[in-house]
C-alpha cells in the first residue's frame, strides 16, 4: 500500500504543450497536473489525439513542454539539456513501446544487456542481471534467439526486461500491447502487474484499451489535452474496475471500448 504522506516520485505541474506556428497553434496539453507515488501502476487513457502520447513524451524528455514543470524525484526535468538528458534517461527511465524497439541484429539477451553496456556496467554483473530478469519474465529459453525468431509476446517481454534491467525510477509504456494478440497481451500485463507489486516498480502506461488499463491501480483520463477524470482501483476486483473504466469511456464519448 502506498502512503499518501510520502513525497511523490513524479510531480507534473500545470504543463502546457503547443504545436504549430504562431498563427495556427494547436494546444496538445492544457494545464495538466498530477502526481505519481513511487510503486504506483498508473494508466493514462483517452481518445486518439487527446494528448496521451504527448504527455508521455514530455515526461520522458523525448519532447519539451511549452509551460509548466515536471519533477522526477525532486529533480526538474524540463530544464535538463545536452549530455545530461542521456544520463538521465539511462539512470532514471525505462521505456516500453508498441513496436518493441528491439535491435534486430542483437539476440534477446544482448537487447536486454544493451542499457547496461551503455552504462558501463561490468560484463559479469551484466550477465547476472540479464539472466535474473529473464528468469522472472520467463524468457530464459529464448535469450540466444534474435527478435525475428521469437513471437511478439516474447519480444515485448524482452523489451520490458530491457526497460527494467537498470532498475529505473520510472517505467513508461506506450501502448505496450498494441501489437500483441489477446493472450500475449494478458501475459505481458500480468508480468507488468507482478513486477509492480513484487518489486515496487513505478509504471506509467499509456493505452486506449480498457482491458489493458484495468491492470493499473489508478487511471487518468485525458480529453482534449486536459485531465477529464481520474479513477482508482482500490480494493475492487479487476473485473469491476474494467466495467468502471468502460463507464468513464462512455462518458468521454471517445474510442469504442475493447
Amino acid at each position, binding site marked *: 500500500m502506498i502512503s499518501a504522506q510520502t513525497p511523490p516520485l513524479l510531480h507534473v505541474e500545470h504543463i502546457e504543450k503547443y504545436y504549430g506556428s504562431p498563427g495556427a497553434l494547436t494546444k496538445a496539453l492544457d494545464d495538466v497536473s498530477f502526481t505519481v507515488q513511487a510503486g504506483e501502476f498508473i494508466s493514462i487513457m483517452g481518445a486518439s489525439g487527446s494528448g496521451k502520447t504527448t504527455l508521455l513524451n514530455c515526461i*520522458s524528455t*523525448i*519532447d519539451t513542454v511549452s509551460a509548466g514543470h515536471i519533477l522526477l524525484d525532486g529533480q526538474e526535468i524540463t530544464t535538463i539539456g545536452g*549530455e545530461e538528458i*542521456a*544520463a*538521465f*534517461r*539511462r*539512470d532514471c527511465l525505462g*521505456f516500453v513501446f508498441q513496436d518493441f*524497439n*528491439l*535491435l*534486430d*541484429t*542483437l*539476440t534477446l539477451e*544482448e537487447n536486454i*544487456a*544493451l*542499457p*547496461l*553496456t*551503455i*552504462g558501463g*556496467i561490468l*560484463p*559479469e554483473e*551484466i*550477465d547476472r542481471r540479464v539472466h535474473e530478469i529473464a528468469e522472472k519474465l520467463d524468457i530464459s529459453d529464448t535469450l*540466444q534467439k*534474435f527478435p*525475428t*525468431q521469437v513471437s511478439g509476446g516474447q519480444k515485448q517481454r524482452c523489451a520490458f526486461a*530491457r526497460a527494467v534491467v537498470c532498475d529505473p525510477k520510472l517505467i513508461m509504456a506506450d501502448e505496450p500491447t498494441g501489437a500483441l494478440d489477446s493472450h500475449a497481451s494478458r501475459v505481458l500485463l500480468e508480468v507488468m502487474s507482478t513486477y509492480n507489486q513484487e518489486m515496487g516498480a513505478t509504471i506509467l502506461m499509456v493505452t486506449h484499451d480498457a482491458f489493458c488499463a484495468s491492470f493499473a491501480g489508478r487511471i487518468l483520463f485525458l480529453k482534449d489535452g486536459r485531465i477529464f477524470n481520474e479513477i482508482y482501483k482500490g480494493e475492487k476486483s479487476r473485473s469491476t474496475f474494467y466495467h468502471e473504466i468502460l463507464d468513464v469511456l462512455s462518458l468521454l464519448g471517445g474510442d469504442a471500448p475493447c
Partner: protein
Amino acid sequence: MLRKLSLRNAKRQFSEYALFFVTLACAVAFMYAFNALLFSDIVKALPEMEILPYLIITASALIILIMGWMIGYMIHYMLKRRSREFGIYLMSGIPNRKLATLLFYENCLIGLIAFGLGLVFGMLFSQILEAVLLNLFGLPYTLHFGFSVSAAGLTFLYFTVMMLSSISRDRKWIRRVQLRELLYYDRRNEKAVVSGGKAACLLFGLSVLAGCGGCLFLALQPIGDGYDVLCGTVLLLLFLFGFFKSVPAYLCARFGNSPAWKYKKHRLVPLRGFIAKINSTSTVMGVLSILFMLAFTFLGIGSMIGLMVTKNVESGAFDVMILHSGEMGDFSRFDSLLRQEYAADGHHYGIYTNGETDFRIVREQTVIEAGREPSLLFAEFEYDTCMAQSDYLTLRELLGYEHLELEPSLCYVHCVPTMAEGVRTLIEGQSGLECGGYAFADDGVFTEVFGQVNEYGNGYGYILVVPDSAVKEMKLVYSVYAAVTEKPLNTAELEQLTSLCENTVSLDRGIAKSNFDGAPTLFYGDWDFLSGKWMDKAGYGYLYAMLICLIYLALVLEMTGAAILATQVLGDWQEKQRQERILRQLGMDARMMSGLRHRQLAQLFLFPLIPALIISGSFLLICDQKMLFGFFEFPPAADIVLIGQSFAVTLLLFSLLYGVYYAAARISFPLSPSG
C-alpha cells in the same frame, strides 16, 4: 503521365544515389580521356607509343565488363529497395510492360545525365592526362580545349553497351514479376541472422590456412617453374571464398558468446551490426575485395614501373653522352651545338682497359648476392675499365660533386653503391693489388651517381680511376663526350641533335652485334652513339604506355568498388536511424553515438580491403622483385627499399581515392534527429 513519372523518379533517384551517379560520370570521364589519347595527334607523335592504343582498348574491354556488372548490381539494388513502390504501381493498374518502360526511361535518363556530365569532366581530365604524358617525355604542354568526336563516339558506344546490357536484365525481370513478389520482395531476400557454427569455424580456419599457404607459396616459391604462382593463386582464391562465407559465423562464435569481450567498450552494437551486414552481403564483399585487390595490384605495378624508370633516369647522371668506339672521337660539333643551343657544359675523355678482371669478379659476385644472374657481358666490359684522374675530377666538377684531393700516384674506384663493400674488401684483402703499376688508395671508393647502372656509361657498375700517366699504356675501349645541360632535353630536341650532327645515331640497348671473339657489342660501324639520361627516358615509351593503362584500370576498379560500398552503407540509413533513436532512448549520449557511427562505417570500409591488401601485397612482392631483377642488374638501392617505396606510394594513392569515398559516405549519412 509515364514520362512525367519517369522524370520525377529519376530526379529522386539522382539525389538518393548521388555517389553512384557521380561514379558513373567519373567512369565516363576516364573513358573519354583515355579514348582521347587514342585519337590525339600529339600522342601519336610520341616515340615507342605504338602499343598504347592496344593497351587502352584491352583495358576498356575489361572496364566495360566490370562497370557493366556494377551498373547491373546497382540498378537491381535500387529496384529491390523500390519493390513496394513498383507493387503500388501494379496495384494502381499500370501493366508490367509499362512499368518496364518506365524503368527503362528512368535509367536512360539517369545514364544520359551521367554521360553528359562525364563528357564535360572528361574533356578536362583528357587535358590533365595529356599534360602528364607529355611531361613524362619532357615535352612542353600548351593548354588547349579540344573536343574529340571520335573519342566521344567510342565512349558512347562503350557506355551504351554497359547500360543496355544492365538495364535489359532488369527489364525482363520486371515484365515477368508478380505483384505479390514485389510487395514482399524485401522479406523474401532477408537472410537468417547468423549464429556461430562449428562447420563455419572450421571453414574459417581452413580459409585462413589457405591464405597463409598462398602467401607463403608466392613469397618463398618452394617449387619453382611458375607452379608456385599457380598454387599460390589457387590457395588465395580459396581463402577469399572461404573467408567471406565463414567470417560472420566465426566472429559470432568467437566473440558473440563471450560476454566478457562483447559487453566491454561499447562493442556490442558495432559487432552485431557488422556481423549482420557481412552475412547478408558476403558475396558482394568478396567481389569488392577482388576489385580492390586488382586495383591495388595494378596501382602497385604502375607505381613500381614509374619508380624504376625514374631511378634509372636519375642514375644516368649526365644529360647527354656521346660514345665513340675504339678511338678518341671528334666531339667538337656536339660541344659547340650543345653549348650554343642548350647552354651545356661538357667534357670528352676516354674509357680504357688494363686487361685485368679483378673487379669484374666483384661485380659478378655483387650481382649474384643481389639474387640475380649476371647478364651476358658486352665486349667492352670483359675487363676492368679505367679513366684518368684528371677526367674524373673534371666530370665530378661538372656534376657539382664535392672536390677531391686525389693522390697522383694512387688508384681509386668509383662504383655503384651495391658494389662498394665488395670493392673495399678486395682492396683491403688482396695485397699487392695494382692497376697499371699503381697501388689502390686505402680509402678510395666513391659511390655518387655516375652513369654506371646501365652499360656504356662510365664503365659498367664500376670504373677504376688511375693516374693520368697510367692510361697512356692502356688500350682505349671507347671515348665519351659527357654534358650537363641547363634544362632537360625532350625527344624532339634529341632527334634534332642526331639529325644535325652527321654520323650520329641513338644508342639502342636492345640491339647487340656479335664480335669475332664471341662477346657482343652495341657499337656498329663508325658512328657516334647518342646516350644519356634523357635518351634513356625517351626509350621507355612502352613502359609509360603500360603505366597509363594500369593507372586507368586501377582508378576505375577502385572507384567502382568504393562506390558500391558507399552506396551499401548509405542504403541502410533508415535502419541506422532507427537504431540511433533506440540507443538514444536507452541513454546513449551524442559522443558515444558519434563514435559508434564512425566505428561501424570504418569496419565496413576496412572489411573487404584487408584481405585484398594481404593478397595484392603478396602478388606485388613477387611482381616487384621480378621486375627489379629484370630491370636493374645493380639496383640503385636495396630491392626491399625500392619495393617499400613503391608500396608506400601505392598505399598513398589508393588511400586518397578510398578516403574520398569514405568521407563522402560519412558526410552523406543522414543523422537521426536528436531528441
